[in-house]
């Protein structure tokens, strides 16, 4: 199983190297891998159909509960078959479609990596592994949408798709972690049986909303649907595979997968039912409004994704059966139609329905398969799409709540879908032949293989619905429901309300198609209202990222060192004050009586010197005052019998003052640019800071919790350190490594100063 998932990655990384070496046969040869996978997965059908669930486990990061655990039941098997099956035809198709392009190798790398990720996604039982594959599909999708990366529009669309899906993905990540917290496991195989615990958990609502954010963005549900039509900037094989048959269904897959754990609540029904129905309606409306071949198909995919979400939300036996049937039907006809769209583009160079007509004679086979697939899309007997649509109508009519609303939405949507199907299935092929950029020919076998097989399967499954129904779909429905359910698919359900709805929608749909050349422009005029739509919201968010970050950065990183210092000191003050006020019950009341009067004198001198240094307008005066301050400090050292430290201080002060005077002597006089207001502010902060440090100092001198280690030094510097000057022994023996470090500091400073003086950019240039 591990090999099945990873083989795609292995071939992917070899693809850029292999592609130029295999020439024209590349598509057929690469197609062998997904084909083999399809056969391998198909061999599991009997076992899975008997209701068994297979688990394959490979440890990955066991400490974090991350494992490559794969779960094979009806649902994952159905998806795995779709992914590998359609993948086979896509790979073959791309071999011809992109032949001779410079990036064909990179394309195969991405599409094969995508296929492997998608397989991993639907097979993973581990939540984290599932998420890893989930994000991998987003990234490969991003790189594929941006295939024509030198066009600005492709880059923008790629970014939009990724940004929306990754934003949802991050919510999903949080949701999955919370799900694991609530359900007590990172394994779907265990979570599927602990639905009651999860639904009762306090975190149920937040985790549900987070997970749905992930699935709704991935599966292009309203209001996140806008990225999908833009993703059509990708090459057609990508649109057919990622953005219709597989990746966008990942969200639907996850909702179906989690239905036993999360589903069945009122929130679930309302959210999925209403949002799904809305998406369905908007998708079909937008499809009817558009004229671009891929645009129409993309919006009809949005419609299908909405339908699936709605059905999973309804969650009855009928609805679940309808969902899996619809899923299969859609993958078959939409995969076929997209590949046909690619053929049209490839053979005629035209991407708009209004400019297409009469191609039937030039490419009869293409026209035939387009017609079959379109019939399935429209839901007309005896195609499999009809079976699915009948089930869908039955399900919405029986919905436990909001039934009326979603039935109305479903019928309205079905009417428009019939019209769309007619536009796709009739318009390019019949009527007068319109001029094309290239002379159209029948497509070669590698392009036609996919549409032919997929469309034929749609017809076959329609005539014999028990063929997929008996084994695969019933197992899939069982997995979605989480409990055994009755699955019965048939073409003919008798004269009932669903059939009446079908007939009505067919009639109205054909009417709409008849008037398409009037309806479509009328609807397109409604585009003026699009500025209220969610896509504008996306644009606003992107614009506000730039503007917020601009103003934030101008404020924070303003370039002025003085404000930086001010901010740091103020932050420190704030934290200190807050800590002292909340954590220190009694402020110290220092006892000053023991201090000798001459100490006060020295203190007064240093304080005055400091004051003079900050107020004087003369540089030399300030330096001299700082010197006085330093000598005052030296005196204090002496008073507390640290004579050697005092001597060091005197030496340092003397040298500093002399050097500063030498340097400052060559500088021009002071210029005062500072406003008195900011001086006042700085002075205030400085005094407050000094005061706070003094306060802390007083607090610490009050307590001495433990005797200092210096007693050890006093005792042992003679006997063990063999020196009578304790400070010296500390410096060169007890703490010699400090001194070593300081020696290197001096060496470093010397190198730095040398380089600064000798290596100047200006000198070098001149």
């Amino acid at each position, binding site marked *: 199983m591990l090999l099945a998932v990873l083989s795609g990655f292995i071939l992917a990384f070899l693809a850029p190297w292999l592609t130029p070496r295999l020439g024209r046969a590349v598509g057929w040869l690469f197609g062998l891998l997904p084909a083999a996978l399809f056969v391998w997965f198909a061999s599991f059908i009997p076992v899975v159909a008997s209701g068994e669930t297979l688990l394959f486990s490979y440890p990955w990061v066991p400490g*974090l509960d991350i494992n490559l655990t794969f779960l094979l039941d009806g649902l994952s098997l159905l998806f795995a078959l779709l992914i590998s099956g359609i993948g086979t035809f896509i790979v073959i198709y791309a071999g011809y479609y992109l032949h001779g392009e410079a990036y064909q190798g990179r394309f195969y790398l991405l599409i094969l990596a995508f296929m492997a990720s998608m397989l991993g996604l639907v097979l993973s039982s581990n939540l984290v592994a599932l998420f890893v594959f989930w994000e991998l599909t987003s990234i490969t999708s991003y790189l594929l949408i941006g295939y024509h990366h030198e066009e600005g529009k492709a880059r923008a669309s790629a*970014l939009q798709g990724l940004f929306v899906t990754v934003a949802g993905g991050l*919510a999903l990540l949080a949701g999955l972690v919370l799900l694991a917290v609530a359900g007590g496991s990172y394994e779907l195989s265990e979570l599927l049986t602990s639905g009651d615990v999860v639904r009762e958990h306090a975190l149920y609502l937040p985790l549900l909303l987070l997970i749905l954010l992930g699935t709704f963005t991935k599966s292009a549900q309203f209001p996140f649907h806008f990225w999908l039509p833009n993703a059509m900037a990708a090459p057609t094989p990508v649109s057919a595979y990622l953005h219709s048959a597989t990746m966008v269904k990942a969200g639907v897959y996850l909702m179906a997968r989690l239905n036993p754990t999360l589903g069945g609540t009122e929130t679930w029904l309302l959210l999925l039912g209403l949002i799904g129905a809305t998406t369905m309606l908007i998708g079909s409306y937008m499809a009817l409004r558009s004229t671009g071949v891929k645009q129409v198909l993309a919006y009809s995919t949005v419609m299908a994704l909405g339908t699936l979400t709605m059905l999973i939300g309804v969650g009855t036996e009928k609805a679940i059966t309808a969902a899996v049937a619809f899923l299969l039907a859609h993958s078959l006809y939409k995969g076929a139609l997209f590949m046909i769209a690619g053929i049209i583009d490839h053979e005629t160079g035209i991407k708009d329905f209004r400019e297409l007509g009469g191609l039937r004679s030039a490419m009869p086979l293409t026209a035939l398969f387009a017609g079959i697939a379109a019939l399935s899309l429209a839901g007309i007997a005896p195609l499999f799409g009809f079976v699915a649509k009948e089930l869908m109508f039955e399900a919405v009519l029986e919905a436990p709540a909001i039934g009326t609303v979603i039935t109305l939405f479903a019928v309205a949507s079905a009417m428009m879908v019939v019209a769309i199907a007619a536009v796709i299935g009739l318009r390019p092929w019949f009527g007068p032949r319109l001029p094309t950029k290239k002379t159209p020919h029948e497509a070669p076998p590698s392009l036609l293989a996919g549409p032919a097989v997929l469309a034929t399967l749609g017809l076959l499954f329609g005539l014999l619905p028990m063929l997929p129904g008996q084994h695969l779909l019933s197992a899939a429905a069982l997995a979605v429901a989480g409990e055994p359910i009755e699955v019965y698919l048939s073409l003919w359900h008798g004269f009932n309300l669903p059939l009446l709805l079908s007939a009505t929608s067919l009639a109205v749909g054909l009417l709409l198609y008849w008037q398409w050349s009037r309806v479509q422009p009328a609807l397109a005029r409604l585009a003026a209202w699009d500025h209220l739509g969610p896509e504008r919201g996306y644009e606003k968010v992107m614009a506000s990222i730039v503007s917020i970050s601009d103003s934030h950065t101008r404020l924070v990183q303003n370039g002025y060192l003085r404000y930086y210092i001010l901010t*740091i000191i103020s932050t420190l003050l704030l*934290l200190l004050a807050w800590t002292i006020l909340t954590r220190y019950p009694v402020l110290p009341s220092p006892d000053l009586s023991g201090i000798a009067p001459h100490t006060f004198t020295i203190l007064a001198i240093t304080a005055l010197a400091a004051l003079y240094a900050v107020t004087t307008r003369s540089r030399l005066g300030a330096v001299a005052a700082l010197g006085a301050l330093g000598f005052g400090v030296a005196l204090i050292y002496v008073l507390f019998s640290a004579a050697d430290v005092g001597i060091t201080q005197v030496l340092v002060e003397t040298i500093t003052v002399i050097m500063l005077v030498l340097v400052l002597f060559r500088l021009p006089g002071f210029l005062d640019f500072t406003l008195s207001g900011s001086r006042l502010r700085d002075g205030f902060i400085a005094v407050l800071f000094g005061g706070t440090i003094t306060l802390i100092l007083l607090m610490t001198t009050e307590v001495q*919790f433990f005797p200092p280690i210096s007693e050890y030094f006093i005792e042992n510097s003679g006997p063990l350190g063999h020196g009578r000057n304790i400070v010296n022994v500390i410096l060169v023996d*007890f703490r010699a490594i400090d001194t070593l470090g300081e020696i290197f500091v001096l060496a470093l400073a010397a190198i730095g100063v040398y380089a600064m003086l000798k290596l100047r950019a200006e000198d070098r240039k001149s």
Partner: protein
Amino acid sequence: MSHVVALPVLIPLLAGSISLIFWRSHSAQRWIGVIANAALLVASLWLLRETWVHGHLVMHMGNWPAPFGIVLVSDLLAAIMIVLTGITGLATALFSLSSIPREQERFGYYPLLHLLLAGVAGAFLTGDIFNLYVWFEVMLVASFALLILGGERAQMEGAIKYVTLNLLSSALFLTAIGLLYGVAGTLNMADLAVKLAEVPPEQSGLLTVIAMLFMIAFGIKAAAFPLFFWLPASYHTPQVAVSALFAGLLTKVGVYSLFRFFTLIFDQDVAFTHEILLWMAVLTMLSGVLGAAAQYEFRRILSFHSISQIGYMILGLALFTPLALVGGIIYIVHHSIVKASLFQISGLVYRLRGTYELKGLGGLFRSHPWLSILFLIAALSLAGMPPLSGFMAKFIIVRAGLEAGAWVAVFFALLVGLLTLYSMLKIWNEVFWKAGPETQHEVPTRGQSPRLTYYYLPIALFAVMTILLGVAIQPIYEIAERSASQLLDTRGYIEAVLGVQP
């Protein structure tokens, strides 16, 4: 006593000194650079192995018993940091071979590099707070000298801000050391841990006040909000090899110190101190990533992201659960590798195209597919996309945060991940996908393709590491997990240093 603890300090000190002896020979200095850093990497791996086997390694300098003399201590956190020092050190040495201009080699580039690494290693290994200050000084002076090497005007301007604000940090650090010594009478970290634990709770408020001083001092070093100003002012000015080393390693010293102090020494009032750290972390993440979104220069974007990522590491510390600390540690490892690699890529792009401005770049996906892939790996890893190291690091932090109920922090951690992706893709779009500008000139590579190898070599090695850290993270996770338990249960550390049961 284990002498291997001293090797990571001794090797670069020695290499620095020998390089000074060979002041006039570039080639000798260059190869000393590579050999010494390779030796450092080997020694660091050996140290990690020994530490893994023995738990804690202690060396009493000058054979003076703790807490009176200075000790070098290696626990797993220190050993991990030392391995990172070895990795980034070697990568920098390799990258320097062809990227450092001749005249900078003439003015002590290599000695400065070695001594900087010595300072970093010393800071990771010391078990004494004043000695830590000394290593900070070594680092500060060495990094300052590296920043100004070259003498460009922008370098001077950045370096002034760098050195001023870092000296402020040093001053606060020293003040805090003095106050702590006044209260506890000791400088040894293990001894401090023992003694501060004995301070009666009603008096521990004073310790929290002192802890704040340390927090700010290290917060400045780590470039946390609102203390990070020196970083965006200076990191884009020196040679890219230096920027990569700084971003990969230097800010981590501040983070490491926060980890060390706020697990071992200041755990009296976790509810208070770590709550502050939490908000510091959140604001750091957010402020950094917003800063990056506003930039259009390759290195400036990366600099601001460094800040943002520091927030994640501090968040790991702030949450203070075992898993969160694991996340923090893995984040440190991940970020060192990825950020150093991204800076080096920016240097290679500069070498190829002669600019760092996104506006003037483009077309590299067409002309340099391998470089593009290397960038994409590093960039996606930084943005936390699976299956790379950044995802694992982020996942652990997010999971720890959710398990601890820190909703706000997790929300921002995820949001910042999205914004990181935004600016990484901005670079990808502008530098790699976009068609190159018409007037673009291919900077002649002077027919020296072997010299470009030294650009590619470290970048490719970093890419391999970030992939391995993502897909084969289990061993690193185990080390980080044991390291986190060492941090939370300080008895092992104390016993190893002081030789007594606490």
